[in-house]
């Protein structure tokens, strides 16, 4: 039935008005939106175990160095967002270093290969996987036809696991020799000596059992050996206080281990072996003193101390002509002194360096390549074009190889020379297995779907075998059939290889949640290598020794394209985004060089021009340069950042086949030019402010208070952190009404119970080594932007267009920073070399928002953007902040950071998270906008998450139930977080420690961060040094 209205033509007035009203309102509503309309689309079929907004955790193995630490990777909605340590893992026991955490930035690296590529007309162009595998097959076929397949080279980044047998099997099938398991960071002299003396590549070093540790140029806290377990054990040992070991460091440069040492013996490069021989009684102290340029009385004291202190632990590092002699001598000394089995435990060996090949094998590889004998070169993970000494001439030789294939997932100098790129998955997308500790297997599993169109190398190699029968094989049909039969037995993919090793799919599935199971991997035997003649110190020209070193962050160069690692200052020099030439102030004065002046270092192998940096921890006859920067083709953050110190090294090896990194002769000349030093250091001295305090063990035990710890204006008496602080009665809410007596949430009796808590933190400076892993943990957890890239400064600005330009304006955003102070009374440039006592006491202190109970920042904010939460947190409300920056001015600790640019805005040059780096962003934390202040929140998202979880489960928060990101990562276990008002929490006990103090207590800020004084271990009486 139709109504008259419907039969009439045209639009009725009422309908017209309705339509007008609705469309008008709709238009207005759309117009109200400030941005593009975005849509949230739910899953049609939700994946198993995936609840939006709830994290899943996967146990896997870290592949950033050879140690094979266990990781627990947190994923949210299918994306890995965080790499924490696996608490059950025998190697890292829940801790994780900066490099391990930055594996996420390798996973999401914006410069990663998106898919396979092939070189056409000089440039790499994308190609489909089928065609790429076809090209691999054809290339291999050609190589085999050439008859030189026996000379083909496969260089794989050294890793524990099964891939090596798989690779060798594939290579054998292709008539090619076994692959080279390469690691430029491996300490070969030590490995060789360990094998010779202890029978294992890397015994467990039990720092806790030792009373004296002597390190012969082994920087075991930063980038030498297995940094995380070494640091864990060392910090545990030092945290014991009574019975803690004294640490002596011997070497020409004072690295992080040297800074933590109680004594630095600055032996000439390459002469530490003389000290070992002296301790063994083979040479006299006088002879050793002459060779090492160390005062004889220092050496005599050491001799006495080593003889009288049991048990001790002697560790040999170093490189150079006599490195193997040194390591062997030291290991033998450990045996003589009875340390083996006590502090050195070969029975609990680590698997990290099993099967690693000495780099000296590359000598023959290069020679063969030069001759044109190498028909094919395969590289996976390693970057030998960059991380080999310039004197070796690897890059030039590569050009003579007709077929070069890379399986690396990120571009680097080596892939730039390759013809075919078959990118592997990132380690966090891959299957694998490791034997990090003898008898224990660590599993590696994909934590998410591959980010890009990559394929596991093992799968690619398997696929390339598909076009059977082998048309290039020799006519020997029997052998051919045998190969075919072997291959038919291979599992379909690499996951199958792993599963097959541990007995099938079911055990694999059962072991995956923990990531650990008992078992072992096949023994790997490293081939021997032709050793190049070592360059004898003093042989080449030049009045200085060169000491190159790799720190944990950049490593041999592999960390350079990860902005977290570029931005994280070196723990010792505090340099980031830059390569400097470290020289002693006395040397600089002699040459008329000031900090930042350009100097050229020249060796027989090459030259390097970089700004000079005055470092008081390097001998006057030595200059030091860090390797790892100065890439030409390794991605946007790595390219043109710093200089490449590999370019200075000659092709010489130490007697174990490692590279000679220290002791090469060089000349240093001042040249025109000056650069700003990219450092986060303001003044490296405390100026008597009592920030990082220390007490000697004797004074602590006798209860004596040192005199210099007194300050004018110091608050009398002791108080608990913030518990005596006034309640923040300026807070709004119910208190907004001046007539109200309601305290609201600030009332301890309030139903929320917040005011009963007082979140607090203790940091034990006796344990903290300054490694800075906590800083990266904070970056990862709190979406802190890195700001140092060349393009992250102002757009229109004539100068300051260089990597680290923002850092030179102190604009780094690290909510947590490591301050490294020397107990000096003068500036670096005025420090003279003191041969008797070269090591100035160094102290490191992590500085973060102190969450003051009486916070100076709070009353000065005009808009309440920072205020006091009932549970003692000093809260920053980004949305409310207008950016007056008064809070920072009034903060005595200077821990507030301002967003000078739109680091979080994708359309800006300063964007800190270019696709797909932003996949890593923690969804629980806001990405801050331009023009607002930010600072440490004590990981408030974790606090509220834990509180909510407890509430949902109908229980109270358990003591030590959760912790902050920095505390979770800390490989020294120096940071403890918790509720100081509840005696059950560990932190509540630690704040009453006899070493506890507050920084700037005299300002009455009532800080919630309590530091425990560092403990110094002076040389024992009688032994004067």
């Amino acid at each position, binding site marked *: 039935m139709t109504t008259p209205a419907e039969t009439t033509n045209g639009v009725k007035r009422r309908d017209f008005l309705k339509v007008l009203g609705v469309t008008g309102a709709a238009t207005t509503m759309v117009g109200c939106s400030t941005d593009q309309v975005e849509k949230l689309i739910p899953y049609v079929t939700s994946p198993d175990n995936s609840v939006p907004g709830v994290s899943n955790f996967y146990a896997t193995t870290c592949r950033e160095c050879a140690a094979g630490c266990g990781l627990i990777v947190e994923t949210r909605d299918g994306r890995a967002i965080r790499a924490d340590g696996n608490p059950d893992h025998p190697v890292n026991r829940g801790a994780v270093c900066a490099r391990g955490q930055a594996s996420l930035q390798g996973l999401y690296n914006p410069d990663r290969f998106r898919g396979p590529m092939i070189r056409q007309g000089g440039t790499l162009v994308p190609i489909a996987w089928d065609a790429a595998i076809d090209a691999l097959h054809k290339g291999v076929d050609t190589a085999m036809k050439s008859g030189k397949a026996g000379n083909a080279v496969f260089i794989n980044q050294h890793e524990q696991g099964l891939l090596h047998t798989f690779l060798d099997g594939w290579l054998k099938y292709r008539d090619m020799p076994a692959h080279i398991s390469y690691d430029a960071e491996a300490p070969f002299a030590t490995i060789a000596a360990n094998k010779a003396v202890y029978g294992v590549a890397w015994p467990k070093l039990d720092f806790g059992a030792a009373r004296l540790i002597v390190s012969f140029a082994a920087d075991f806290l930063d980038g030498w050996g297995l940094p995380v377990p070494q640091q864990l054990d060392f910090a545990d040992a030092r945290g014991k206080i009574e019975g803690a070991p004294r640490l002596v460091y011997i070497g020409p440069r004072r690295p992080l281990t040297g800074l933590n040492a109680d004594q630095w013996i600055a032996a000439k490069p390459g002469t530490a072996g003389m000290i070992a021989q002296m301790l063994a009684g083979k040479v006299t102290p006088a002879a050793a003193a002459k060779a090492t340029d160390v005062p004889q009385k220092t050496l005599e004291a050491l001799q006495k101390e080593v003889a009288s202190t049991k048990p001790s632990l002697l560790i040999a590092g170093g490189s150079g002509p006599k490195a193997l002699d040194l390591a062997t001598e030291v290991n033998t000394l450990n045996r003589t002194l009875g340390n083996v089995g006590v502090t050195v435990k070969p029975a609990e060996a680590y698997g990290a360096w099993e099967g690693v090949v000495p780099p000296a094998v590359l000598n023959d590889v290069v020679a063969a390549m030069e001759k044109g004998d190498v028909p094919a070169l395969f590289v996976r993970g390693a970057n030998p074009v960059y991380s080999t000494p310039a004197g070796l001439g690897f890059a030039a030789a590569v050009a003579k190889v007709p077929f070069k294939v890379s399986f690396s997932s990120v571009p680097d100098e080596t892939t730039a020379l390759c013809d075919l790129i078959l990118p592997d998955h990132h380690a966090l997308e891959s299957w694998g297995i490791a034997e990090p500790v003898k008898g224990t297997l660590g599993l590696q599993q994909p934590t998410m779907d591959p980010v890009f169109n990559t394929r596991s190398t093992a799968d690619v190699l398997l696929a390339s075998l598909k076009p059977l029968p082998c048309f290039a094989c020799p006519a020997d049909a029997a052998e051919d059939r045998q190969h075919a039969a072997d291959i038919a037995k291979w599992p379909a993919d690499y996951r199958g290889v792993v599963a097959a090793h541990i007995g099938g799919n079911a055990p694999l599935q059962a072991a995956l949640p923990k990531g650990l199971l008992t078992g072992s991997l096949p023994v790997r035997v490293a081939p021997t290598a032709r050793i190049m003649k070592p360059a004898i110190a003093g042989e080449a020209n030049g009045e200085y020794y060169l000491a190159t070193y790799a720190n944990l962050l950049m490593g041999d160069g592999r960390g350079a394209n990860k902005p977290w690692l570029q931005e994280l200052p070196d723990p010792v020099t505090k340099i980031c985004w830059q390569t400097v030439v470290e020289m002693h102030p006395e040397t600089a004065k002699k040459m008329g060089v000031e900090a930042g002046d350009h100097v050229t270092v020249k060796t027989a192998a090459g030259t390097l021009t970089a700004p000079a940096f005055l470092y008081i921890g390097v001998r006057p006859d030595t200059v030091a340069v860090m390797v790892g920067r100065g890439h030409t083709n390794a991605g946007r953050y790595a390219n043109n950042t710093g200089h490449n110190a590999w370019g200075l090294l000659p092709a010489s090896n130490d007697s174990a086949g490692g590279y000679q990194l220290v002791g090469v002769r060089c000349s240093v000349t001042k040249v025109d030019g000056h650069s700003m030093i990219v450092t986060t250091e303001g003044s490296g001295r405390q100026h008597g402010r009592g920030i990082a305090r220390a007490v000697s063990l004797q004074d602590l035990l006798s209860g004596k208070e040192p005199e210099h710890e007194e300050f*004018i204006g110091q608050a009398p008496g002791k108080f608990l952190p913030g518990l005596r602080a006034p309640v923040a009665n300026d807070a709004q809410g119910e208190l907004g009404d001046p007539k109200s007596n309601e305290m609201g949430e600030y009332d301890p009796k309030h139903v929320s119970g917040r005011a009963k808590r007082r979140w607090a933190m203790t940091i034990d400076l006796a344990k903290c080594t300054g490694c800075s892993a906590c800083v990266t943990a904070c970056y990862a957890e709190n979406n802190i932007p890195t700001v140092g890239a060349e393009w992250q400064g102002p757009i229109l600005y004539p100068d300051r267009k260089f990597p680290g330009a923002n850092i030179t304006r102190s604009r780094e955003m690290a909510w947590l920073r490591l301050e490294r102070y020397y107990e000096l009374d003068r500036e670096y440039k005025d420090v003279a070399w003191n041969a008797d006592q070269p090591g100035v006491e160094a102290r490191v202190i992590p500085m973060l928002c102190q969450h003051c109970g009486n916070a100076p920042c709070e009353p000065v904010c005009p808009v309440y953007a920072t205020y006091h939460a009932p549970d003692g947190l000093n809260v920053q409300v980004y949305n409310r902040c207008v*950016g007056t920056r008064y809070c920072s001015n009034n903060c005595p600790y200077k821990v507030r950071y301002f967003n000078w640019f739109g680091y979080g805005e994708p359309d800006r040059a300063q964007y800190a998270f270019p696709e797909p780096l932003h996949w890593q962003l923690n969804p629980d934390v806001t990405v801050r906008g331009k023009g607002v202040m930010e600072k440490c929140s004590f990981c408030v998202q974790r606090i509220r998450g834990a509180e909510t979880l407890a509430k949902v489960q109908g229980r109270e928060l358990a003591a030590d139930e959760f912790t902050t990101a920095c505390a979770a990562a800390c490989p020294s276990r120096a940071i403890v977080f918790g509720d100081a008002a509840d005696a059950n929490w560990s932190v509540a006990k630690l704040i009453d420690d006899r070493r506890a103090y507050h920084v700037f207590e005299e300002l009455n800020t009532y800080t919630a961060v309590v530091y425990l004084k560092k403990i110094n271990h002076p040389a024992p009486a009688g032994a004067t040094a």
Partner: protein
Amino acid sequence: MATIAYEPKRPNIASANVQLPAVRDYEQVDTEITATLRPTKAWFAALLVAMLCLALGISAWMYQIWGGLGVAGYNPPVMWGVYIITFVFWVGIGHAGTLISAILYLFRAGFRTTIYRAAEAMTVFAVMTAGLFPIIHIGRPWKFFWLIPYPNWRLLWPQFKSPLVWDVFAISTYLTISTTFLFVGLIPDIAILRDRETNPLRKKILAFLSFGWRNTEREWRHFARAYLFLAAVSTPLVLSVHSVVSFDFAMALTPGWHTTIFPPYFVAGAIFSGIGMVFTIIIPIRKWFNLRHYVTLNHLDAAAKLALATSLIVGCAYMVEFFIAWYGGVKAEQDYFWNRVFGQWWWAAWIMLTCNMILPLSLFSQQLRRNPTWLWILSIFINIGMWFERFVIVVPSLSHEYEPWQWTTYAPTWVDYTILLGSFGWFFMWFLLFIRQLPVIALAEVKEIVPPRLKHAHAHTPDAADDFEPETPGAHS
């Protein structure tokens, strides 16, 4: 001729009763002073330059809003820089106007008569300039209104403990009162302009602005009372506003800021800088518009004494700061002051000390006090010195605080400098527009001191006209 028993060589100038011998009648006052209202080529050129500077400043600010505050030279923890320095600089300049027009009015200081209008206009425009800088300075300038207590459904108020909120009240109050005071004083003068205006539209506007002033006795009585009351209201503001601005620093615990001397020290500095700016403006005006017989050397001499007095107060405050830093015994404070004067920032501190403490000592010489060229040069030094005083307060303190690890340096970028230049463009644009539209010397008040017998036109005597600039100190006073 009677013998003068004692005639001192350098007689003191009685500033209370400065006469204008070369001004003979009301008509002369009107014609000579309103001559400033006629546009000249130089005026247009000056306005063009000012507006060009302003345009540059606006462009730089737009770039800064788009790009973020990082385009300026901030170097954390130096979180305040050129903008806060310039803010305090302009607020300080804004203080001389009200001091001259209100306080000196209450104290019956006659030398204010011919300079107060320029000073008062300068005050209004300086405060207008200063008020921009907190907005330029903040990270999200589009949210600056959150500092204002306005009713909102979130029941959010500003933090009334924050000195920055006090600033909002102080500056807005000061701008309101000083604008009102300027305008009220202008009413009789606008009426004169109205009467002389031929353009009917302008005449209407001026008639409206003069509130239909008819020059009656009753109007004058009300006017005088209103002016007196406004002077009384403004007087405490002169002291309070800059005290509040000084609280921005004094309330913080930053070494170098946390000191109780700041309020009086800032007020004295403000008056000092304001008088400096008055010299900078008034000396060219009296020269270019031939007003030397209105703003006589006696006037300048008296004003220079005020500058000298405030300079001595400021210098004393500097010394007290050093003394207290030493006497207080706080290590951070002592380090800071050492670093300020003999360390990293020695150059800035010595520019400040030279310009504000040493050079003004020249004003002890009466010859120099009566030398307009020297006064003008000195005024430029005072302006520079007072800008650097704020630089020395803001930057060295923040760059050298408690935490040695965070000690830094600071260097402004072209954006800072361009916005600073733009602020001068903005200020002088308003001032140039002002002198083109309204009398820069108060017509009515000048007429008050013209002797009654000369109220009407009479034949000029040449010798009297030559004597408008008293070469003899104290003549005509």
